[in-house]
């Protein structure tokens, strides 16, 4: 099956908003086991990324969802470890396109992407926003920040804090400010 392209995802996102009949199927099955999270906590080596790729991915994650004094970002969520585990188990066919993007990202910055200052990193990302695999790398970071924590990302509910929402198993009315 063909690799999902940015165009597909842009179209999917438009469909997604249209009344919600979309089940977005991607071509892999299975769940990312909690062992990915444990690996991250133990500081284990990556399963898919080389150390260099891991550094680039971590630097990219920090620019997609930057940490700030008030709120965690993709780094605290462990998104890079989620991404590594997801490429190993959920989306192996994304591995090569993601690698190619990370290579191009490093090559696009004088002195290397991961060693650059943030302004230069943002510039390098902007230059590659139309790269066919940018959206895959972005999705990995976002999934690693906002997916259910059992998939290995969203550590200590970092994603929930970014969204400024409480996530509980059940609720009772009133639900929001307008239905009080």
């Amino acid at each position, binding site marked *: 099956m063909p690799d999902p392209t940015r165009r597909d995802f842009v179209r999917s996102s438009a469909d997604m908003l249209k009344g919600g009949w979309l089940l977005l199927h991607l071509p892999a099955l299975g769940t990312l086991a909690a062992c990915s999270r444990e690996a991250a906590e133990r500081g284990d080596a990556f399963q898919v990324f080389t150390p260099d790729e891991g550094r680039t991915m971590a630097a990219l994650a920090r620019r997609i969802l930057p940490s700030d004094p008030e709120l965690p970002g993709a780094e605290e969520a462990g998104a890079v470890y989620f991404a590594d585990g997801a490429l190993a188990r959920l989306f192996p066919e994304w591995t090569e396109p993601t690698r190619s993007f990370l290579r191009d990202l490093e090559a696009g910055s004088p002195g290397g992407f991961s060693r650059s200052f943030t302004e230069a990193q943002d510039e390098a990302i902007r230059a590659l926003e139309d790269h066919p695999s940018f959206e895959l790398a972005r999705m990995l970071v976002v999934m690693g920040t906002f997916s259910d924590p059992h998939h290995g990302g969203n550590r200590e509910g970092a994603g929930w804090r970014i969204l400024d929402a409480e996530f509980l198993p059940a609720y009772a009315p009133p*639900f929001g400010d307008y239905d009080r």
Partner: protein
Amino acid sequence: MRRFQERDEVDFVVVGSGAAGGVIAKELATAGFSVVVLEQGPWRRNEDFGHDELGTWILGELGPPPERFPQTFRRDEGEEAQVQNTPPPLIYAQGVGGSSVHFTANFWRLRPVDFQERSLLGPISGTGFADWPITYEELEPYYTKVDWEIGVSGVPGPFDPPRSRPYPVPPLPVKSSGVLLERGAERLGWHAQPAPMAILSEPYDGRAGCIHCGFCMAYGCEAGAKSSTLVTSIPRAVASGNCEVRPESTVLRVETNREGRCTGVVYVDTAGTEHRQGARAVVLSANGAETPRLLLLSESSLFPQGLANSSGKVGKYLMCNGQSAAVGIFPDRLNEHKSVQVTRIIHDFYETDPRRGFYGGGGMDGRFTFGPLLFALWGTFPGDPSWGPEYKRFLHQTYTRTMEVAGHTTSLAMESNSISLDPEVRDHWGRPALRMTYRDYPDDLAAMRFFTDRGVELLEAAGAHRVAGLPVEGTSLTAHLLGTCRMGDDPENSVVDRYHRAHDVPNLFICDGSSMVTSGRGQPTMTIQALAFRAADHMVEAARRGEI
């Protein structure tokens, strides 16, 4: 659960355990007939369902695995269909309860006009626009039966069709999106009403009420409050002692004899072993995509175009319902991630109004499609940054303050829109893949644009400080699988008669979304279940008369 031997000839074999199949199995079994239900997917329990957005939406864990069961799509016959798995064009859940497990549970009845609109408006060029052979009045007792047997929460609204009995359960508590829908409607002179939902607002019939967890659309309900056939009809069918449900059993073909009657079905288990189940009559309720595929795959020398297809209409007249969306951000918190998707709807624009310049109408609702992951992936407004500090600030400030007004609209039946067998791509069992051919009729696109504009107006009137209408594009995926074995009195133009019996095969019954003649205005499941109760009544009568 009672078990039948494959060598036994049961009274009925029912293919599919979803909205229609579950109801029919229960009705037949409790009337004393022996029934075997064959279901492609697994038999999940309530405790198997959770809140995993990645697993449910991205990995599609409740649907057929796309790498084993690919589907193809094309706009028209002139195009070569392409595999489309991200997402697939035809969306349905596999498992006992079928798509009634994962649907959003909007539960609108059709109105009298939906059954007779062709007579009222006249023909529409290039379409198969037709009246139903039955009326709302004939179906009303069965709508009421669905209300009470399946469990529906609601209260009648100003434009509702006549009903013979009140709802069994009051409406679900209003959410902020519902309050804002009411506020906007009032300012515009429209009428919002509580949404009828197949989700229990309070305990009913031995089941718990909704716990407002917020994971309905595309998810199974761990509380059992969503009124799927998994927790309503199927347990009753099994408790009758006359029904066996066989999960993970995929039917490959319907068998017929030289007299042109069904004798049973051939199915395959997960290990790939073929089995045969004999039956006096066969009921197909496999959904509006799988039912026509099964008929087309059951061709024989007696039925060279596929079973029950002397009309050539099997798989034709696919209707998906149009969808539209407008999104608005409000100053205060809505917290739409809590509770059911929809609590208020608007039906002011339901009927066709010639002054609008197009055929069609629809309904609107206030909702929020996204969970946290989907919102972070795709919830930004067109043109806004999708990474960086500004993106993060958008997520932080708007996730709890956003809602959507969704429009659900008519689709005209066109013979060129269809489900057919892909000539190239095959699935895990070697069957030709499902191929969807679909191009919206111009009036259907006009209706979607009209509802997008109404959604924008409504959000602005309700006080949203930022609003966007999503662009209307041609339909390329759908969870509404309608019209592909349409009901009618004329065997040359329809597949089943008014009692869901195949015109060509006396002991073959077909009842699911495929039976529908017009699309209604979205939310077809209520009607599919009313049709199923009615069809089952006639099957029982026919069987008692010895006519199956």
